[in-house]
Protein backbone atom coordinates (compact mmCIF):
# COMPACT_ATOMS: atom_id res chain seq x y z
CA UNK A 1 0.00 0.00 0.00
CA UNK A 2 3.00 2.31 0.07
CA UNK A 3 2.19 4.98 -2.46
CA UNK A 4 5.73 5.66 -3.78
CA UNK A 5 6.17 2.00 -4.57
CA UNK A 6 2.80 1.74 -6.26
CA UNK A 7 3.60 4.91 -8.06
CA UNK A 8 6.84 3.50 -9.31
CA UNK A 9 5.15 0.36 -10.57
CA UNK A 10 2.53 2.32 -12.46
CA UNK A 11 5.17 4.57 -13.98
CA UNK A 12 7.14 1.54 -15.13
CA UNK A 13 4.03 0.00 -16.64
CA UNK A 14 3.32 3.23 -18.49
CA UNK A 15 6.87 3.27 -19.68
CA UNK A 16 6.63 -0.22 -21.11
CA UNK A 17 3.31 0.57 -22.71
CA UNK A 18 4.79 3.64 -24.40
CA UNK A 19 7.71 1.81 -25.87
CA UNK A 20 5.87 -1.43 -26.60
CA UNK A 21 4.80 -0.75 -30.21
CA UNK A 22 8.20 0.48 -31.31
CA UNK A 23 10.03 -2.18 -29.32
CA UNK A 24 7.95 -4.90 -30.93
CA UNK A 25 8.38 -3.47 -34.40
CA UNK A 26 12.10 -2.89 -34.04
CA UNK A 27 12.56 -6.33 -32.56
CA UNK A 28 10.64 -8.06 -35.29
CA UNK A 29 11.72 -6.07 -38.33
CA UNK A 30 15.19 -4.97 -37.37
CA UNK A 31 16.90 -6.71 -34.47
CA UNK A 32 15.75 -10.22 -35.18
CA UNK A 33 16.53 -9.87 -38.91
CA UNK A 34 20.13 -8.96 -38.10
CA UNK A 35 20.54 -12.26 -36.31
CA UNK A 36 18.76 -14.07 -39.11
CA UNK A 37 20.95 -12.49 -41.75
CA UNK A 38 23.98 -13.57 -39.77
CA UNK A 39 22.59 -17.10 -39.74
CA UNK A 40 21.63 -17.03 -43.43
CA UNK A 41 25.21 -16.15 -44.31
CA UNK A 42 26.07 -19.73 -43.34
CA UNK A 43 23.40 -21.30 -45.52
CA UNK A 44 22.84 -22.17 -49.13
CA UNK A 45 19.49 -21.46 -50.79
CA UNK A 46 17.68 -23.49 -53.40
CA UNK A 47 16.25 -21.87 -56.51
CA UNK A 48 12.76 -22.13 -55.05
CA UNK A 49 13.43 -21.52 -51.37
CA UNK A 50 14.54 -23.77 -48.61
CA UNK A 51 18.03 -23.43 -47.23
CA UNK A 52 20.60 -25.79 -45.84
CA UNK A 53 23.51 -25.10 -43.54
CA UNK A 54 26.69 -24.79 -45.54
CA UNK A 55 29.25 -23.64 -42.99
CA UNK A 56 31.77 -21.13 -44.21
CA UNK A 57 31.18 -21.83 -47.91
CA UNK A 58 29.73 -18.41 -48.64
CA UNK A 59 32.60 -16.62 -46.96
CA UNK A 60 35.09 -18.70 -48.82
CA UNK A 61 33.36 -17.84 -52.07
CA UNK A 62 33.31 -14.18 -51.01
CA UNK A 63 37.06 -14.09 -50.60
CA UNK A 64 37.61 -15.59 -54.05
CA UNK A 65 34.86 -13.75 -55.94
CA UNK A 66 36.50 -11.32 -58.39
CA UNK A 67 33.25 -9.33 -58.59
CA UNK A 68 33.30 -8.79 -54.83
CA UNK A 69 36.91 -7.64 -55.09
CA UNK A 70 36.03 -5.12 -57.78
CA UNK A 71 32.92 -4.01 -55.90
CA UNK A 72 35.02 -3.34 -52.81
CA UNK A 73 37.64 -1.36 -54.71
CA UNK A 74 34.97 0.73 -56.43
CA UNK A 75 33.03 1.30 -53.25
CA UNK A 76 36.12 2.41 -51.35
CA UNK A 77 37.24 4.69 -54.16
CA UNK A 78 33.77 6.23 -54.41
CA UNK A 79 33.65 6.72 -50.65
CA UNK A 80 37.04 8.36 -50.50
CA UNK A 81 36.51 10.67 -53.48
CA UNK A 82 33.00 11.45 -52.26
CA UNK A 83 34.55 13.18 -49.24
CA UNK A 84 35.38 16.04 -51.64
CA UNK A 85 31.88 17.17 -50.99
CA UNK A 86 32.93 18.27 -47.50
CA UNK A 87 35.53 20.94 -48.36
CA UNK A 88 33.26 22.20 -51.13
CA UNK A 89 30.35 22.46 -48.74
CA UNK A 90 32.49 24.29 -46.18
CA UNK A 91 33.67 26.83 -48.75
CA UNK A 92 30.18 27.54 -50.02
CA UNK A 93 28.76 27.61 -46.52
CA UNK A 94 31.36 30.25 -45.65
CA UNK A 95 30.41 32.25 -48.74
CA UNK A 96 26.73 32.05 -47.85
CA UNK A 97 27.19 32.72 -44.15
CA UNK A 98 26.54 36.43 -44.34
CA UNK A 99 23.81 38.95 -44.65
CA UNK A 100 23.54 39.43 -48.37
CA UNK A 101 20.87 39.64 -50.99
CA UNK A 102 20.05 36.35 -52.67
CA UNK A 103 21.42 34.03 -49.99
CA UNK A 104 18.20 32.07 -49.70
CA UNK A 105 17.96 31.74 -53.47
CA UNK A 106 21.48 30.35 -53.75
CA UNK A 107 20.78 28.02 -50.85
CA UNK A 108 17.67 26.73 -52.60
CA UNK A 109 19.68 25.97 -55.74
CA UNK A 110 22.24 24.02 -53.75
CA UNK A 111 19.50 22.16 -52.02
CA UNK A 112 17.44 21.12 -55.05
CA UNK A 113 19.53 18.01 -55.84
CA UNK A 114 19.26 16.88 -52.23
CA UNK A 115 15.48 16.55 -52.36
CA UNK A 116 15.33 15.12 -55.87
CA UNK A 117 14.69 11.40 -56.13
CA UNK A 118 18.05 9.67 -56.65
CA UNK A 119 16.57 7.53 -59.43
CA UNK A 120 15.63 10.70 -61.30
CA UNK A 121 18.99 12.30 -60.60
CA UNK A 122 20.81 9.29 -62.01
CA UNK A 123 18.66 9.28 -65.15
CA UNK A 124 19.30 12.93 -65.83
CA UNK A 125 23.04 12.53 -65.38
CA UNK A 126 23.16 9.42 -67.51
CA UNK A 127 21.73 11.55 -70.28
CA UNK A 128 24.12 14.45 -69.60
CA UNK A 129 26.99 11.94 -69.77
CA UNK A 130 25.91 10.39 -73.08
CA UNK A 131 28.99 10.14 -75.28
CA UNK A 132 27.40 11.19 -78.56
CA UNK A 133 24.39 13.29 -77.65
CA UNK A 134 25.11 14.41 -74.08
CA UNK A 135 25.22 18.04 -73.05
CA UNK A 136 28.59 17.68 -71.35
CA UNK A 137 30.36 16.42 -74.45
CA UNK A 138 28.62 19.06 -76.52
CA UNK A 139 30.04 21.67 -74.17
CA UNK A 140 33.47 20.10 -74.46
CA UNK A 141 33.23 19.98 -78.24
CA UNK A 142 32.80 23.75 -78.26
CA UNK A 143 36.29 24.05 -76.83
CA UNK A 144 37.64 21.37 -79.12
CA UNK A 145 37.65 18.44 -76.71
CA UNK A 146 36.27 15.07 -77.75
CA UNK A 147 34.70 13.82 -74.52
CA UNK A 148 34.47 10.13 -73.63
CA UNK A 149 31.39 7.97 -73.05
CA UNK A 150 31.53 8.96 -69.41
CA UNK A 151 29.56 6.14 -67.81
CA UNK A 152 30.36 3.46 -70.39
CA UNK A 153 34.11 3.99 -70.38
CA UNK A 154 36.02 2.05 -67.71
CA UNK A 155 38.49 4.91 -67.35
CA UNK A 156 35.92 7.54 -66.45
CA UNK A 157 32.86 5.73 -65.09
CA UNK A 158 33.79 5.82 -61.43
CA UNK A 159 34.70 9.51 -61.50
CA UNK A 160 31.48 10.26 -63.30
CA UNK A 161 29.67 8.55 -60.46
CA UNK A 162 31.58 10.58 -57.88
CA UNK A 163 30.60 13.81 -59.60
CA UNK A 164 26.92 12.90 -59.29
CA UNK A 165 27.43 11.94 -55.67
CA UNK A 166 29.15 15.21 -54.82
CA UNK A 167 26.68 17.25 -56.83
CA UNK A 168 23.75 15.79 -54.94
CA UNK A 169 25.23 15.85 -51.45
CA UNK A 170 27.00 19.20 -51.34
CA UNK A 171 23.81 21.10 -50.55
CA UNK A 172 22.99 18.80 -47.71
CA UNK A 173 26.40 19.16 -46.11
CA UNK A 174 26.26 22.87 -46.72
CA UNK A 175 23.15 23.18 -44.56
CA UNK A 176 24.84 21.39 -41.69
CA UNK A 177 27.95 23.54 -41.95
CA UNK A 178 25.89 26.70 -42.12
CA UNK A 179 24.20 25.69 -38.88
CA UNK A 180 27.61 24.95 -37.39
CA UNK A 181 28.95 28.34 -38.45
CA UNK A 182 25.98 30.17 -37.09
CA UNK A 183 26.65 28.57 -33.71
CA UNK A 184 30.10 30.18 -33.56
CA UNK A 185 29.85 33.21 -31.26
CA UNK A 186 30.23 36.49 -33.13
CA UNK A 187 32.63 37.96 -30.53
CA UNK A 188 35.33 35.51 -31.64
CA UNK A 189 35.35 37.20 -35.00
CA UNK A 190 35.10 40.66 -33.49
CA UNK A 191 38.12 39.98 -31.32
CA UNK A 192 40.05 38.66 -34.29
CA UNK A 193 39.08 41.66 -36.37
CA UNK A 194 40.40 43.95 -33.62
CA UNK A 195 43.68 42.07 -33.84
CA UNK A 196 43.74 42.90 -37.53
CA UNK A 197 42.89 39.44 -38.91
CA UNK A 198 41.34 39.53 -42.38
CA UNK A 199 38.54 37.33 -43.69
CA UNK A 200 40.89 34.56 -44.81
CA UNK A 201 42.74 34.42 -41.50
CA UNK A 202 39.46 34.44 -39.61
CA UNK A 203 38.26 31.54 -41.72
CA UNK A 204 41.37 29.45 -41.10
CA UNK A 205 41.95 30.45 -37.47
CA UNK A 206 38.40 30.49 -36.17
CA UNK A 207 35.85 28.98 -38.52
CA UNK A 208 37.71 25.85 -39.55
CA UNK A 209 38.86 24.72 -36.08
CA UNK A 210 35.49 25.40 -34.52
CA UNK A 211 33.77 23.63 -37.39
CA UNK A 212 35.92 20.52 -37.12
CA UNK A 213 33.52 18.59 -34.85
CA UNK A 214 30.79 19.19 -37.43
CA UNK A 215 33.12 18.14 -40.22
CA UNK A 216 33.97 14.99 -38.32
CA UNK A 217 30.33 14.17 -37.88
CA UNK A 218 29.58 14.83 -41.55
CA UNK A 219 32.47 12.69 -42.68
CA UNK A 220 31.34 9.76 -40.53
CA UNK A 221 27.82 9.98 -41.89
CA UNK A 222 28.94 10.45 -45.47
CA UNK A 223 31.34 7.50 -45.35
CA UNK A 224 28.60 5.26 -44.03
CA UNK A 225 26.23 6.53 -46.72
CA UNK A 226 28.74 6.16 -49.56
CA UNK A 227 29.57 2.61 -48.58
CA UNK A 228 25.91 1.77 -49.19
CA UNK A 229 25.73 3.30 -52.65
CA UNK A 230 23.03 1.62 -54.70
CA UNK A 231 20.38 3.81 -56.37
CA UNK A 232 22.74 5.72 -58.65
CA UNK A 233 24.49 2.60 -59.88
CA UNK A 234 21.27 0.70 -60.27
CA UNK A 235 20.04 3.32 -62.72
CA UNK A 236 23.33 4.08 -64.44
CA UNK A 237 24.36 0.51 -65.11
CA UNK A 238 21.28 -1.60 -64.40
CA UNK A 239 21.52 -4.93 -62.62
CA UNK A 240 21.53 -8.61 -63.32
CA UNK A 241 23.02 -10.10 -66.48
CA UNK A 242 22.07 -7.12 -68.69
CA UNK A 243 24.24 -4.72 -66.68
CA UNK A 244 27.27 -6.81 -67.52
CA UNK A 245 27.07 -5.75 -71.16
CA UNK A 246 28.33 -2.33 -70.08
CA UNK A 247 32.11 -2.33 -70.58
CA UNK A 248 32.43 -0.04 -67.57
CA UNK A 249 30.43 -2.33 -65.33
CA UNK A 250 33.55 -3.63 -63.54
CA UNK A 251 34.22 -0.02 -62.51
CA UNK A 252 30.64 0.75 -61.51
CA UNK A 253 29.68 -2.27 -59.49
CA UNK A 254 29.30 -1.61 -55.76
CA UNK A 255 28.94 -3.85 -52.74
CA UNK A 256 25.25 -3.18 -52.20
CA UNK A 257 24.53 -3.62 -55.88
CA UNK A 258 26.24 -7.00 -55.81
CA UNK A 259 24.14 -7.79 -52.75
CA UNK A 260 20.99 -6.91 -54.69
CA UNK A 261 22.05 -9.03 -57.66
CA UNK A 262 22.86 -12.08 -55.59
CA UNK A 263 20.07 -11.87 -53.02
CA UNK A 264 17.24 -10.83 -55.34
CA UNK A 265 18.18 -11.47 -58.96
CA UNK A 266 19.93 -14.83 -58.82
CA UNK A 267 18.21 -15.69 -55.52
CA UNK A 268 21.45 -16.65 -53.84
CA UNK A 269 20.21 -15.33 -50.49
CA UNK A 270 22.86 -17.06 -48.42
CA UNK A 271 25.64 -15.49 -50.43
CA UNK A 272 23.82 -12.16 -50.36
CA UNK A 273 23.70 -12.39 -46.58
CA UNK A 274 27.45 -13.01 -46.49
CA UNK A 275 28.01 -9.91 -48.63
CA UNK A 276 26.13 -7.64 -46.24
CA UNK A 277 27.81 -9.19 -43.23
CA UNK A 278 31.08 -8.16 -44.84
CA UNK A 279 29.62 -4.69 -45.38
CA UNK A 280 28.72 -4.45 -41.70
CA UNK A 281 32.26 -5.37 -40.77
CA UNK A 282 33.69 -2.76 -43.13
CA UNK A 283 31.44 -0.04 -41.78
CA UNK A 284 32.30 -0.86 -38.19
CA UNK A 285 36.03 -0.89 -38.92
CA UNK A 286 36.03 2.33 -40.96
CA UNK A 287 33.94 4.15 -38.38
CA UNK A 288 36.26 2.99 -35.61
CA UNK A 289 39.25 4.22 -37.59
CA UNK A 290 37.63 7.60 -38.05
CA UNK A 291 36.99 7.90 -34.34
CA UNK A 292 40.63 7.05 -33.74
CA UNK A 293 41.87 9.63 -36.20
CA UNK A 294 39.63 12.41 -34.99
CA UNK A 295 42.01 13.17 -32.11
CA UNK A 296 44.49 14.44 -34.66
CA UNK A 297 42.29 17.00 -36.33
CA UNK A 298 39.08 17.64 -34.44
CA UNK A 299 39.13 20.51 -31.93
CA UNK A 300 36.49 20.36 -29.30
CA UNK A 301 36.05 23.77 -27.77
Amino acid sequence: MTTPRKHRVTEALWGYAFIAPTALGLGLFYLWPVLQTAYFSFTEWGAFGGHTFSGLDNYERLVHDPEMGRALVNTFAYTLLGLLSIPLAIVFAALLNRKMRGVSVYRTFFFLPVVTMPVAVAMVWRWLYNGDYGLINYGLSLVGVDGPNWVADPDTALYALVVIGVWSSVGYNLIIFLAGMQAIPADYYEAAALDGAGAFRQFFRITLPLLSPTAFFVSVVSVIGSLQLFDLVYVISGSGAAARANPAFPRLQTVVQLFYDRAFVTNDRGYGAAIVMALLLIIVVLTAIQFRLQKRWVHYA
Partner: protein
Amino acid sequence: MPDKGRRIGLHAVLIVASVLMVTPFVWQIVTSLKTLSSATSVPPTLLPEGHWANYGRVFDLLPFGTQFLNTLITALARTVGQVFLCSMAAYAFARLRFPGRNFLFGLFLSVLMVPPQLFIIPQYEIMSDLGWLNSLPALIVPGLFSAFGVFLLRQFFLGLPVELEEAARIDGANPWRIYWSIVLPLARPGMVALAVLVLLWSWNDLFWPLVVNTDPDKMTLAAGLASLQGQYQTDYPVLMAGSLLASVPVIAVFVFLQRQFIQGIAQTGIKG
Protein backbone atom coordinates in the same frame (compact mmCIF):
# COMPACT_ATOMS: atom_id res chain seq x y z
CA MET B 1 35.27 50.20 -53.38
CA PRO B 2 37.31 46.98 -52.86
CA ASP B 3 34.35 45.85 -50.78
CA LYS B 4 32.07 46.22 -53.76
CA GLY B 5 34.50 44.37 -55.99
CA ARG B 6 34.64 41.52 -53.54
CA ARG B 7 30.87 41.42 -53.39
CA ILE B 8 30.65 41.12 -57.16
CA GLY B 9 33.28 38.39 -57.14
CA LEU B 10 31.34 36.55 -54.47
CA HIS B 11 28.14 36.70 -56.49
CA ALA B 12 30.00 35.58 -59.58
CA VAL B 13 31.28 32.47 -57.80
CA LEU B 14 27.87 31.70 -56.38
CA ILE B 15 26.15 32.23 -59.68
CA VAL B 16 28.52 29.86 -61.46
CA ALA B 17 27.92 27.27 -58.75
CA SER B 18 24.16 27.78 -58.98
CA VAL B 19 24.25 27.30 -62.73
CA LEU B 20 26.07 24.00 -62.18
CA MET B 21 23.42 22.94 -59.71
CA VAL B 22 20.48 23.91 -61.88
CA THR B 23 21.62 23.03 -65.41
CA PRO B 24 20.82 19.31 -65.12
CA PHE B 25 17.23 20.19 -64.23
CA VAL B 26 16.93 22.63 -67.08
CA TRP B 27 18.32 20.08 -69.53
CA GLN B 28 15.93 17.52 -68.15
CA ILE B 29 12.98 19.80 -68.91
CA VAL B 30 14.30 20.74 -72.35
CA THR B 31 14.91 17.12 -73.35
CA SER B 32 11.52 16.00 -72.06
CA LEU B 33 9.96 18.19 -74.75
CA LYS B 34 11.95 16.79 -77.67
CA THR B 35 11.47 13.81 -79.95
CA LEU B 36 14.08 11.07 -79.84
CA SER B 37 15.39 12.13 -83.24
CA SER B 38 15.91 15.72 -82.23
CA ALA B 39 17.35 14.74 -78.85
CA THR B 40 19.97 12.74 -80.74
CA SER B 41 20.78 15.41 -83.28
CA VAL B 42 24.29 16.80 -83.34
CA PRO B 43 24.78 19.60 -82.39
CA PRO B 44 21.86 19.56 -79.96
CA THR B 45 19.12 22.15 -80.12
CA LEU B 46 19.14 24.06 -76.88
CA LEU B 47 15.54 25.20 -76.83
CA PRO B 48 12.53 23.08 -75.87
CA GLU B 49 10.27 22.00 -78.70
CA GLY B 50 6.87 21.40 -77.22
CA HIS B 51 6.77 17.68 -77.93
CA TRP B 52 4.40 16.98 -75.02
CA ALA B 53 3.72 13.44 -76.21
CA ASN B 54 6.58 12.16 -74.05
CA TYR B 55 4.51 12.91 -70.96
CA GLY B 56 1.62 11.01 -72.47
CA ARG B 57 3.96 8.08 -73.11
CA VAL B 58 4.89 7.98 -69.43
CA PHE B 59 1.21 7.60 -68.55
CA ASP B 60 0.81 4.90 -71.22
CA LEU B 61 3.81 2.95 -70.05
CA LEU B 62 3.32 3.21 -66.31
CA PRO B 63 0.19 3.22 -64.17
CA PHE B 64 1.49 6.58 -63.11
CA GLY B 65 -1.57 7.75 -61.21
CA THR B 66 -1.71 4.53 -59.20
CA GLN B 67 1.99 4.66 -58.47
CA PHE B 68 1.69 8.27 -57.43
CA LEU B 69 -1.06 7.33 -54.98
CA ASN B 70 0.95 4.35 -53.70
CA THR B 71 3.89 6.61 -53.05
CA LEU B 72 1.75 9.26 -51.40
CA ILE B 73 -0.12 6.81 -49.17
CA THR B 74 3.08 5.04 -48.21
CA ALA B 75 4.90 8.26 -47.45
CA LEU B 76 2.02 9.71 -45.42
CA ALA B 77 1.30 6.52 -43.51
CA ARG B 78 4.94 6.03 -42.66
CA THR B 79 5.38 9.63 -41.65
CA VAL B 80 2.33 9.82 -39.41
CA GLY B 81 2.88 6.36 -37.96
CA GLN B 82 6.56 6.79 -37.36
CA VAL B 83 6.30 10.21 -35.80
CA PHE B 84 3.53 9.02 -33.50
CA LEU B 85 5.13 5.75 -32.42
CA CYS B 86 8.59 7.23 -32.08
CA SER B 87 7.34 10.15 -30.03
CA MET B 88 5.66 7.75 -27.61
CA ALA B 89 8.80 5.70 -27.13
CA ALA B 90 10.96 8.81 -27.02
CA TYR B 91 8.77 10.31 -24.32
CA ALA B 92 9.12 7.16 -22.21
CA PHE B 93 12.88 7.12 -22.60
CA ALA B 94 13.16 10.82 -21.81
CA ARG B 95 10.80 11.11 -18.88
CA LEU B 96 9.59 7.83 -17.38
CA ARG B 97 11.60 5.58 -15.15
CA PHE B 98 11.36 1.85 -15.58
CA PRO B 99 13.71 -1.08 -15.08
CA GLY B 100 15.82 -1.88 -18.12
CA ARG B 101 15.38 1.57 -19.60
CA ASN B 102 19.02 2.12 -20.43
CA PHE B 103 19.45 -1.37 -21.72
CA LEU B 104 16.43 -1.05 -24.01
CA PHE B 105 17.54 2.34 -25.24
CA GLY B 106 20.96 0.89 -26.01
CA LEU B 107 19.28 -1.91 -27.90
CA PHE B 108 17.29 0.61 -29.93
CA LEU B 109 20.43 2.56 -30.69
CA SER B 110 22.20 -0.57 -31.86
CA VAL B 111 19.70 -0.73 -34.74
CA LEU B 112 20.97 2.67 -35.80
CA MET B 113 24.48 1.34 -36.19
CA VAL B 114 23.56 -1.46 -38.59
CA PRO B 115 23.44 -0.80 -42.34
CA PRO B 116 19.83 -1.30 -43.47
CA GLN B 117 20.77 -3.95 -46.05
CA LEU B 118 21.13 -6.39 -43.17
CA PHE B 119 17.43 -6.24 -42.47
CA ILE B 120 16.23 -6.77 -45.98
CA ILE B 121 16.42 -10.51 -46.62
CA PRO B 122 14.57 -11.47 -43.41
CA GLN B 123 12.09 -8.62 -43.85
CA TYR B 124 11.39 -9.93 -47.31
CA GLU B 125 10.87 -13.43 -45.91
CA ILE B 126 8.45 -12.09 -43.32
CA MET B 127 6.48 -10.26 -46.01
CA SER B 128 6.44 -13.40 -48.10
CA ASP B 129 5.23 -15.54 -45.18
CA LEU B 130 2.46 -13.07 -44.52
CA GLY B 131 1.43 -13.00 -48.15
CA TRP B 132 2.16 -9.28 -48.16
CA LEU B 133 4.43 -9.19 -51.19
CA ASN B 134 2.97 -6.79 -53.73
CA SER B 135 0.85 -4.87 -51.27
CA LEU B 136 0.92 -1.46 -49.66
CA PRO B 137 1.36 -2.84 -46.12
CA ALA B 138 4.67 -4.31 -47.28
CA LEU B 139 5.81 -0.79 -48.13
CA ILE B 140 4.41 0.79 -45.00
CA VAL B 141 4.68 -1.52 -42.02
CA PRO B 142 8.46 -1.93 -41.58
CA GLY B 143 8.80 1.82 -42.03
CA LEU B 144 6.55 2.59 -39.06
CA PHE B 145 9.35 1.79 -36.65
CA SER B 146 12.52 3.74 -36.43
CA ALA B 147 15.34 3.80 -33.96
CA PHE B 148 16.51 7.03 -35.49
CA GLY B 149 13.18 8.74 -34.82
CA VAL B 150 13.19 7.62 -31.20
CA PHE B 151 16.71 8.88 -30.75
CA LEU B 152 16.02 12.21 -32.39
CA LEU B 153 12.83 12.93 -30.47
CA ARG B 154 14.27 11.80 -27.18
CA GLN B 155 17.02 14.38 -27.59
CA PHE B 156 14.38 16.94 -28.34
CA PHE B 157 12.22 16.01 -25.34
CA LEU B 158 15.21 16.17 -23.03
CA GLY B 159 15.62 19.80 -24.03
CA LEU B 160 12.05 20.73 -23.08
CA PRO B 161 11.32 22.32 -19.68
CA VAL B 162 9.80 19.88 -17.16
CA GLU B 163 7.87 22.38 -15.04
CA LEU B 164 4.55 22.07 -16.88
CA GLU B 165 4.73 18.29 -16.76
CA GLU B 166 5.50 18.34 -13.03
CA ALA B 167 2.52 20.58 -12.40
CA ALA B 168 0.24 18.31 -14.40
CA ARG B 169 1.50 15.29 -12.56
CA ILE B 170 0.77 16.85 -9.20
CA ASP B 171 -2.71 17.56 -10.51
CA GLY B 172 -3.04 13.80 -11.03
CA ALA B 173 -2.72 13.58 -14.81
CA ASN B 174 -1.49 10.22 -16.03
CA PRO B 175 1.53 9.91 -18.36
CA TRP B 176 -0.65 9.56 -21.43
CA ARG B 177 -2.45 12.84 -20.70
CA ILE B 178 0.83 14.55 -20.02
CA TYR B 179 2.36 13.20 -23.19
CA TRP B 180 -0.64 13.97 -25.34
CA SER B 181 -1.70 17.38 -24.14
CA ILE B 182 1.51 18.90 -22.80
CA VAL B 183 4.56 17.33 -24.39
CA LEU B 184 3.35 16.85 -27.93
CA PRO B 185 2.29 20.46 -28.49
CA LEU B 186 5.64 21.65 -27.16
CA ALA B 187 7.52 19.17 -29.30
CA ARG B 188 6.00 20.22 -32.57
CA PRO B 189 9.20 21.60 -34.14
CA GLY B 190 11.07 18.38 -33.43
CA MET B 191 8.26 16.28 -34.81
CA VAL B 192 7.95 18.38 -37.93
CA ALA B 193 11.68 17.99 -38.50
CA LEU B 194 11.39 14.23 -38.23
CA ALA B 195 8.26 14.15 -40.37
CA VAL B 196 9.91 16.09 -43.15
CA LEU B 197 12.87 13.73 -43.23
CA VAL B 198 10.73 10.60 -43.17
CA LEU B 199 8.56 11.98 -45.95
CA LEU B 200 11.53 12.75 -48.15
CA TRP B 201 13.23 9.46 -47.51
CA SER B 202 10.11 7.44 -48.01
CA TRP B 203 9.24 9.18 -51.27
CA ASN B 204 12.67 8.66 -52.76
CA ASP B 205 13.57 5.22 -51.41
CA LEU B 206 14.32 2.60 -54.04
CA PHE B 207 15.76 -0.62 -52.66
CA TRP B 208 12.94 -1.91 -50.46
CA PRO B 209 10.06 -1.05 -52.83
CA LEU B 210 12.02 -2.57 -55.69
CA VAL B 211 12.36 -5.82 -53.81
CA VAL B 212 8.93 -6.31 -52.26
CA ASN B 213 6.60 -5.00 -54.92
CA THR B 214 7.20 -6.23 -58.44
CA ASP B 215 3.63 -5.63 -59.52
CA PRO B 216 3.43 -2.25 -61.32
CA ASP B 217 0.12 -1.40 -59.68
CA LYS B 218 1.73 -1.73 -56.26
CA MET B 219 5.00 0.02 -57.02
CA THR B 220 6.14 3.37 -55.78
CA LEU B 221 7.29 6.01 -58.22
CA ALA B 222 11.00 5.38 -57.63
CA ALA B 223 10.66 1.70 -58.51
CA GLY B 224 8.25 2.45 -61.34
CA LEU B 225 10.65 4.95 -62.83
CA ALA B 226 13.50 2.45 -62.59
CA SER B 227 11.31 -0.11 -64.37
CA LEU B 228 10.56 2.43 -67.08
CA GLN B 229 14.27 2.51 -67.77
CA GLY B 230 14.24 -1.28 -67.83
CA GLN B 231 11.78 -1.18 -70.70
CA TYR B 232 12.76 1.99 -72.50
CA GLN B 233 16.43 1.86 -71.71
CA THR B 234 17.72 4.91 -73.47
CA ASP B 235 14.67 6.67 -74.87
CA TYR B 236 15.87 9.76 -73.06
CA PRO B 237 13.02 12.16 -73.81
CA VAL B 238 10.51 9.73 -72.26
CA LEU B 239 12.84 9.04 -69.33
CA MET B 240 13.31 12.75 -68.71
CA ALA B 241 9.56 13.31 -68.72
CA GLY B 242 9.05 10.42 -66.31
CA SER B 243 11.82 11.45 -63.95
CA LEU B 244 10.52 14.98 -63.88
CA LEU B 245 6.98 13.89 -63.07
CA ALA B 246 8.19 11.60 -60.30
CA SER B 247 10.46 14.07 -58.57
CA VAL B 248 8.48 17.27 -58.91
CA PRO B 249 6.07 16.60 -56.00
CA VAL B 250 8.85 16.43 -53.43
CA ILE B 251 10.61 19.41 -54.94
CA ALA B 252 7.36 21.36 -54.66
CA VAL B 253 6.89 20.31 -51.05
CA PHE B 254 10.46 21.36 -50.38
CA VAL B 255 9.91 24.81 -51.76
CA PHE B 256 6.95 25.22 -49.43
CA LEU B 257 8.55 23.65 -46.36
CA GLN B 258 12.06 24.84 -47.03
CA ARG B 259 12.60 26.23 -43.54
CA GLN B 260 11.47 23.04 -41.81
CA PHE B 261 13.54 20.90 -44.13
CA ILE B 262 16.65 22.88 -43.41
CA GLN B 263 16.00 22.97 -39.69
CA GLY B 264 15.39 19.26 -39.67
CA ILE B 265 18.66 18.54 -41.37
CA ALA B 266 20.62 21.06 -39.38
CA GLN B 267 19.27 19.58 -36.16
CA THR B 268 19.87 16.00 -36.99
CA GLY B 269 22.48 15.91 -39.65
CA ILE B 270 21.41 12.42 -40.55
CA LYS B 271 19.63 11.33 -43.65
CA GLY B 272 16.51 9.20 -43.21
